[in-house]
């Protein structure tokens, strides 16, 4: 989907997205690194659950939301990559706590 221009000076940074190992470069945003790895959708739309991908890449559209190291609702286009990061897609509804039958809503 996206490719890298020639980039001889920057160090590689490795992190995981879902169960995939991603090689990025120091200073990349998580969103840019994932686009470069061919990953075009980072979250599901809250109502219909359909796949969404980054739109603005500057922190105003919230379509690049991911979970980073267990913390959800992170804007991938603003988060710099870090070695060993565990990144996961953000589901339509956050999955915090313990699942229940849920008649309390």
């Amino acid at each position, binding site marked *: 989907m996206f490719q890298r221009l020639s980039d001889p000076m920057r160090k590689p940074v490795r992190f995981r997205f879902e169960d995939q190992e991603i090689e990025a470069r120091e200073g990349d945003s998580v969103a840019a690194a994932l686009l470069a790895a061919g990953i075009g959708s980072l979250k599901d739309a*809250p109502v219909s659950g359909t796949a969404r991908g980054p739109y603005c890449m500057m922190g105003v559209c919230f379509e690049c939301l991911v979970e980073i190291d267990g*913390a959800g609702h992170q804007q991938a286009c603003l988060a710099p990559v870090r070695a060993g990061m565990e990144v996961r897609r953000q589901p339509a509804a956050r999955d*915090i*706590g*313990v699942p*229940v039958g*849920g008649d*309390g*809503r």
Partner: protein
Amino acid sequence: MASDFIIIGGGLVGSALSHGLLKAGASVTILDEGDVAFRASRGNFGLVWVQSKGDGMAEYAQWSRESSELWTSFAESLGDATGINVGHHRPGGLELCLEPEEYEAYETSIKRMHNQGGVSDNDRRMISGDEVRAMEPNVGPEVIGASFCPHDGIVNPLLTLRALHRIAASARADYRPDHRVERIIPEHGGFRVITRSGSFSAAKVILAAGNGSAALGADVGLTIPVGPERGHIIVTERTRPLFNHVLGQIRQTDEGTVMLGATKESVGFDTGFNPEMIRKVASNAVRKVPALKGLRMIRSWSALRIMSPDGFPVYQESDDHPGAYSISCHSGVTLAAVHALKLAPALLEPGFNTRFAAFSPRRFDVPETE
């Protein structure tokens, strides 16, 4: 053309009353202040709540319970008439306690209500922290106990209002948004109500405008001792279902967002934002349900409740001007069923003040000293 009734206020109280009156065949004009058919949703959790109601007034405990019982069929009837599912659930409710003082206060309240007779404590009982966690796996270890009532429930207040408005429209009620009432003039055979956009006449007039009623009451000999009480609310992003019952101050909506409250401030009509209140709401919530810690607050605001000095409803027919009524309460959602099904019919009959004597504002009159 004059209506049988003019209702001032198109929020949950006014709309519920109009529903009952229309059902009984009366003609109704509803005068609403702004385009505010949707304003009630702002502050309202949509709790159909019984457990804390009526400590100090058995009639109110009874009234709340009655409404809670009627709500199920009321919700069904709204659905049948409009196709709108107002999301009514009645799984029972929990008021969680973090401090021994809270637990003791609830416990004492239950005892007092038990001694009031009638519906007494409405089957409210105290349960231990472990019992709470067995019922609600997402409640955290800081919770030392809770008061539980099997009759508590929830509903979507916006959809309820929308359904009531839709029914009113089909029954040819005359609904007027942007008609802020400036004055009521008693005249022969009824009342003339003056708004910015024209005047309306009716045999009877109902003041159901919440905090706006007090000023108009003087025109028709009604004292309406209600005032604003501010509460701050937080709404979060969506999350999967977290609760089996309804938690009093942590209310998950049908969409999956979580609404958090409930603070109290007396600041007049100021709906400004107080960061300290928001901090308190968030702090209470994460102490009770630690899983909420990582959930994001999307929006917060403050809204005004309608409070009488004792927190119980104020219902009255004017002595000086019979046919003018004031109907005020802070539980417009809980009481919507009885407002529509019990109170509205009573507006068509004599003896209103006798029937609703307990809710008269005379209860606030200072007794004359000798």
